[in-house]
């Protein structure tokens, strides 16, 4: 009789769970029976390059990073479209040329809009929008 086709998934799942858990369990047993734990303030410190950390690791990043990244990403993708456009430029019909031009104008319009909104201002308080 053929085994249940789902049996393989069960076997795979069993191996996938056992394989990482076994060394973890062995390490735990080793620590339990041989190695005395020696925690300490230095040893458990978050930063690990020899220098004492200053302040907390949980800080808020400025939203400007996000806005800059988004705007950069749009023009990064645009550059990818521009390369084949430039390569095939001489053999393009007028319609394709106009289509790419509209695409470019849309993006530039978006940039102008973002600029007008103050997305390119680094210091929010100075522009006060």
């Amino acid at each position, binding site marked *: 009789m053929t085994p249940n086709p789902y049996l393989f998934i069960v076997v795979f799942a069993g191996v996938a769970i056992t394989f990482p858990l076994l060394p973890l369990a062995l390490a735990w047993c080793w620590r339990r029976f041989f190695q005395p734990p020696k925690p300490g303030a230095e*040893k458990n410190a978050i930063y690990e390059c*020899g220098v004492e950390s200053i302040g907390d690791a949980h800080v808020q990043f400025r939203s400007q990073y996000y806005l800059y990244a988004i705007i950069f990403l749009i023009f990064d993708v645009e550059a990818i479209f521009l390369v084949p456009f430039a390569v095939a430029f001489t053999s393009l019909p007028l319609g394709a040329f106009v289509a790419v031009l509209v695409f470019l104008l849309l993006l530039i319009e978006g940039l102008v809009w973002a600029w007008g909104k103050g997305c390119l201002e680094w210091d929010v308080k100075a522009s006060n929008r």
Partner: protein
Amino acid sequence: MSEIDEKLRSELQKQGIFVVKMQDLYNWGRKNSIWPLQFGLACCAIEMIATAASRYDIARFGGEVFRPSPRQADLMIVAGTVTKKMAPQIVRLYNQMPDPKYVISMGACAISGGPFKQGYNVLKGIDRYIPVDVYIPGCPPRPEALLHAFMELQRKIDGQKLSGADKAEFLKPEQPSEFPVPEFGEHDLNPPANPRTYHPPVVEKQ
């Protein structure tokens, strides 16, 4: 637990069956995969890099995995001049390494300050703050010397015991894993040495 008979062991070995103690297996495993902490301080570091590169190839001894984090390192190779500005960072890195951890003091500077011993800003030996397992003299030591120190360390690891009264230091609960980090004082580091680990040689006059 009774010891296995030496003759029986060799007889089994001929048949391809190896009987070892847990301790031997453990030491065999860890002595052949010593991961050093990746940092260099001065010109000795160049020799350390040469040791890790293809010509001398520390990978033959299982020590090629230089780790950038102390959390993953077993061995600290203090390669070069330790300035007093750098000493607290080194002790802190040593503290952050998990047990068992070992230290190789590489070169004259790391041992005693070397040619810069008279310098106001140079630590006169890293063993003032952390326990050192192997010292390599030289200015700088050749890569062969570092390999020799590595093999000496492997020999030391091989001889460490897991249980009993003479078991390895790192297995004793009372043995500290962290050592006090010196602070910058007005003229010198404060304290100038850790009295628990540093025992200066006593000169006896006849």
